[in-house]
Each structure stands twice: as C-alpha cells, then as structure tokens.
C-alpha cells in the first residue's frame, strides 16, 4: 500500500475570491501581518501496489484527468 498526498493550488494570476475573504476574516480576528491567503485542496489517497514510480505516474494522470483543473490549478504529488 502506498499513501500519497496530492495538493491542488490555484495558479498565479488567477483571482481567488475565497482566499481574499479568508484574508479579510483573519484581519477581523486581529491577526496582523497576513500578506495574502490562497485557498487550495488536499487529497489523501491510498494506492494498492508498491511501485512508487507507477504510483506517481498514476497520481499525475489522476490530477490531469480529474483532481485538478489545469486551466486554473497546479498540483503537486507527494508519496509518504
């Protein structure tokens, strides 16, 4: 069993209204010094098999086909 974490984040230059709202809420809670907030997604995925190279290739394909919208999002794959 291979455990992996996929992180999906918005590309630079893509407006993130939710991140902006969170930024405003942090300021409202008196957290000073928050430069900016960008919201993303995390997927924890368990894969059968033990070949890390295959797992990484599969996970990248999953990102390209479903987990990320590559028009607006980047992704990173991390094996535990």
């Amino acid at each position: 069993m291979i455990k992996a974490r996929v992180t999906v984040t918005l590309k630079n230059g893509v407006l993130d209204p939710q991140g902006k709202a969170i930024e405003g809420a942090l300021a409202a809670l008196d957290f000073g010094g928050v430069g900016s907030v960008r919201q993303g997604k995390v997927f924890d995925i368990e894969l059968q098999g033990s070949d890390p190279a295959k797992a990484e290739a599969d996970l990248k394909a999953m990102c390209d086909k479903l987990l990320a919208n590559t028009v607006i999002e980047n992704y990173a794959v991390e094996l535990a």
Partner: protein
Amino acid sequence: MKSAVVLLPGLNRDRDMIAALTKISGQAPATVWQTDTEIPDVDLIVIPGGFSYGDYLRCGAIAARMPVMRAVAEKAKAGTLVIGVCNGFQILVEAGLLPGALMRNTSLKFVCREVKMQVANANTAFTRGYAPGQIIRSPVAHHDGNYFADAETLARLEGEGQVVFRYAENTNPNGSINDIAGIVNDKGNVLGLMPHPENLIEAAHGGNDGRALFESALGLKAA
C-alpha cells in the same frame, strides 16, 4: 427539428428546459441519462442547469467524466449543436468541449436575478435570431459563473468572435473576465452560457428574450 436533454443527478433545471424545447419545437426532446453511451439522432443536445453531483470537487467536474459526456463529445465533433446552460456550461468546460474555466463569483454570493446581456456575435447558429449588439433580458442563478481564461485563450476567443454573449449595462453578476456570459467553441457548434434563456420564452415568464436562442438553434429562424 429534434432535440435531446442530458440528465444527471443534481441537475434541477431539466424540467424547465424540456418544457421550453417542447413549446418551441413542438415536440418533446429525447432524454439521455448519465450512463447512456449513445445519444439518439438529434439536431440539438442541451445540458441544463443545476448542481450536478452537488458541485463536489469543482462545479461540473464529476458530471463531465460520466459516460454520456463521451457521447456528447462525439456528437459535437460530428457537428451536432450543443448548448450548456449554467451548470451545463460548467460541465462543457470541465469536459474540455469549451475553453476556460468557471470560478466562484467574485462577490462570493449566489446571485439570482435578472441581468442584461448583449449579443456580441449574432452570426452563430445560436444567435442568428437576434440583431447584432441586441441587448436582451436574462435571468441568472449561480454561484460559480466567473468565467476565466488565460490571456492567450482570451485573445483567441475575442479575435475569432467566440464571445457570443456579454453582460451589458454594468450588470456583470459574477466578475467574469471581459464581461463574458457565453462562448462558442472554435467550430461554432457548442455554446455555453451562464444565464437561463429557457426561463424567458413566453408571456407567462414576463418576456420572451430567450426564445430566439432556441429558435435559432432549432432552425426556426432564417439565417
């Protein structure tokens, strides 16, 4: 002219769309379910609005990967007209049948109101029933209608006349780039738009500004 409506769990504007197509074309559209792999021989396929799969992951993302969408892609490739309204638009971009992406409204609020839309290109299969530049009333109801495309894609869309509808008179409800409300693909046979023309087709709706879109697509308006 025959039409078909794509049904997916979580869509909720399918009845409105079926009623509009029935009234305008004089015959009820065929319906196809998400697991159907074939779509009957029709002139127009419509993906209605709603919240397919509860907007999980991204709006339209799950629906776009269902078997019926492969059949829609084949029909689109063969030249059949396809319209995606609201969630249908989101599904079409997620399926890669239209460029760009639809993001959360900049206000972060769900907007349900009437806006004004300008016909930016009246020379398409969907808009030939309108005058160039005509301003029409358009109901909208969505949370994620903020159209985005990278600079290169945007330049191509604008340059090739693929921006078909634009929010007008400062009524952009979602922060969409260049006030884009609806676009067509490069072949001009796939249209996606956020507003709901099916909800403004007869006097009982308080107006019929949306009717010409369906009349155009159904071949009821002369070119």
